[in-house]
């Protein structure tokens, strides 16, 4: 469109954090092709560009859900109770690396990692402590777990049963998005094919037994954190979504039986308008794909529901207090983009896991947006803005261009095997870093306005005593359980893995017998093999 009149700009070009050029001014010509009913629709109406509910935050605020977990189950349980007392409305569990990769705390590879970046869970005994005193019929829980998602979900189901809460009552989410693990987050265990079987087994179990549970959270967050642009995050996430729908249909499920339980998870990065346009584009693309490509007839299958986390990769170790403000802006974009739940990062997270003080400020940030700012008083206040609608269209076009490339490569799994996503993301990450170093991208407190002292922040540390306590409990649980029952349950799991039966049922039996996560995953490792990636940089 138009050039800057009279060369008055501060820069030669104005470019988003993702590298998109932004014009001086947007006007009617930029949205000329837009038809309100077809392309936007009222909130609650197809294609949901303006939001999935008619009343949005006037009816109910988004769920404030801070991702937390460290050390042992006791320590994390105390943090969850603290967060609920502070007005948080849902839980979000972070597991440590051994748990994410399906190793017990006593595995040689777990040394030094137990409880470090999340809570260590080995058996049902840990899970019972983790949710002790937390009513699972009233609190919804999101669990960031992927390769072993079925196992942790089974533990949750059994803990709920022990509280007298049936599986039809529990609400929450397992991340369970294995495709983005190969793309970006890299906590994969099995090769793609058996991994997809585990995913569709959880879809089937959920549809039949736990209808209020989100069986997957298709996640762009980690793709973005690994360095992707907004368009790549949008495109790769929705491409994965299409792949899961295809897999569910191929596994014999009816699309409207499982699609309403698919949920999404996006990043909210620093470029305010680009982010909120991304959320709006995501809803529109998904609605059209579900209705027109997959023939879903239930509106609940068409609605893209999503969680948002502010961008961890945007946090700076320098002048950490600045992160409070950075996060507030990102959170605002998520709210104006219509998120269903939100995690706001704490100011100290470029340095360590968040302290209680830091996480309280992060939660208060959401509460201020919700209760003070007034932005929750009306639905989609930015809808119809020339700029926002033009940017929404542009991101949508970019996503479809990526869909075409992925389809030409033979779909998401084939593109993973060819290293397509990994290369695209690595290229973007490197370009981003170079732009920061050249000063083209400003990071306040790092490459500009870096002067001055900032006060030292008090960091949370997870000491070796957590690991010791965890090892003690695991040893005790293994000593006290019925060994015969464990062996039988693991044998039945092995037989099911070799056949075609839904694995959730034998996993539930194994978990109930206090078989450990590592033991269950070892059986599946033997049956399914392990994935090794080609290291691309």
């Amino acid at each position, binding site marked *: 469109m138009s050039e800057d009149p009279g060369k008055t700009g501060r820069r030669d070009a104005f470019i988003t954090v993702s590298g998109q050029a932004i014009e001086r001014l947007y006007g009617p010509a930029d949205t000329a092709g837009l038809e309100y009913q077809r392309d936007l629709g009222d909130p609650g109406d197809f294609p949901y560009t303006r939001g999935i509910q008619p009343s949005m935050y006037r009816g109910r605020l988004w769920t404030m859900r801070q991702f937390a977990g460290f050390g042992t189950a006791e320590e994390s349980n105390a943090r969850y109770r603290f967060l609920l007392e502070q007005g948080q409305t849902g839980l979000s569990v972070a597991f440590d690396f*051994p748990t994410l990769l399906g190793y017990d705390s006593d595995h040689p590879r777990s040394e030094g*990692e137990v409880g470090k970046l999340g809570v260590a869970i080995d058996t049902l005994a840990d899970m019972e402590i983790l949710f002790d005193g937390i009513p699972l019929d009233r609190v919804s829980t999101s669990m960031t777990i992927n390769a072993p998602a079925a196992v942790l979900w089974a533990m949750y189901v059994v803990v709920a049963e022990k509280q007298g809460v049936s599986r039809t009552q529990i609400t929450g989410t397992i991340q369970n998005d294995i495709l983005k693990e190969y793309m970006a987050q890299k906590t994969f265990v099995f090769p793609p094919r058996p991994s997809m079987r585990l995913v569709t087994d959880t879809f089937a179990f959920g549809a039949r037994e736990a209808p209020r549970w989100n069986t997957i959270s298709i996640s762009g967050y980690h793709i973005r954190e690994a360095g992707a642009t907004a368009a790549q995050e949008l495109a790769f996430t929705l491409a994965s979504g299409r792949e899961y729908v295809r897999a569910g249909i191929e596994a014999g499920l009816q699309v409207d039986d499982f699609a309403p339980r698919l949920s999404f998870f996006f990043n909210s990065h620093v470029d305010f308008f680009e982010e909120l346009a991304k959320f709006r584009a995501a809803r529109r693309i998904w609605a059209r794909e579900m209705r027109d490509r997959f023939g879903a007839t239930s509106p609940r299958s068409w609605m893209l529901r999503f969680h948002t986390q502010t961008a961890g990769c945007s946090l700076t*170790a320098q002048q950490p207090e600045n992160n409070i403000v950075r996060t507030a802006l990102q959170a605002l974009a998520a709210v104006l983009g219509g998120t269903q739940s939100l995690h706001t990062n704490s100011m100290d997270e470029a340095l360590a896991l968040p302290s209680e003080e830091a996480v309280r400020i992060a939660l208060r940030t959401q509460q201020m947006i919700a209760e003070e700012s007034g932005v929750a008083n009306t639905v989609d206040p930015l809808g119809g803005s020339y700029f926002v609608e033009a940017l929404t269209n542009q991101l949508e076009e970019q996503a479809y261009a990526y869909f075409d490339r992925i389809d030409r490569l033979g779909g998401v799994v084939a593109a993973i095997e060819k290293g397509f996503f990994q290369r695209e993301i690595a290229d973007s990450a*490197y370009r981003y870093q170079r732009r920061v170093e050249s000063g083209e991208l400003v990071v306040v407190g790092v490459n500009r306005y870096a002067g001055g002292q900032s006060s030292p922040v008090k960091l949370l540390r997870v000491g070796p005593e957590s690991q010791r306590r965890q090892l003690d409990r695991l040893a005790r649980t293994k000593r006290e359980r019925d060994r015969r029952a464990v062996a039988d349950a693991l044998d039945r799991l092995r037989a099911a893995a070799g056949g075609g039966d839904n694995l959730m049922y034998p996993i539930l039996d194994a978990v109930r017998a206090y078989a450990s996560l590592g033991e269950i995953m070892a059986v599946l490792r033997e049956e399914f093999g392990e994935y090794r990636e080609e290291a691309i940089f």
Partner: protein
Amino acid sequence: MGKIIRVLVAKPGLDSHDRGAKVVARAYRDAGMEVIYTGLHQTPEQVAEAVVQEDADVLAISILSGAHEVLVPRMVELLRRRGRGDVLVLVGGVVPDDDVPALLQAGVARVFGPGSRLDEIVEFTRRAVEGSG
């Protein structure tokens, strides 16, 4: 300029955050160095073996999992035992300030935290290797 510097970029432990490792690997390569990247989830033994096999001058360890206290000294010790105590060992990632002295004590030449510049990492590496050669 002397011989081409050989850098092994390593991801030890279960840590899966590989963005930094890949960006730094590429910066070394763009600076004309020979770069080998181990890929994820390497044991300290595998990393030491790779340093020996690849005849690396530099071991650049990326770690964001908090397991540096255990894994880094072990890798340095394994290198010494295998007669490669001369390797320049660098650590990048999230390491609390309080932990840095212990890593330096163990034989790490420098720890690069969040916000470090690529040019600075490359320059430091070049000077350290060429200075010692």
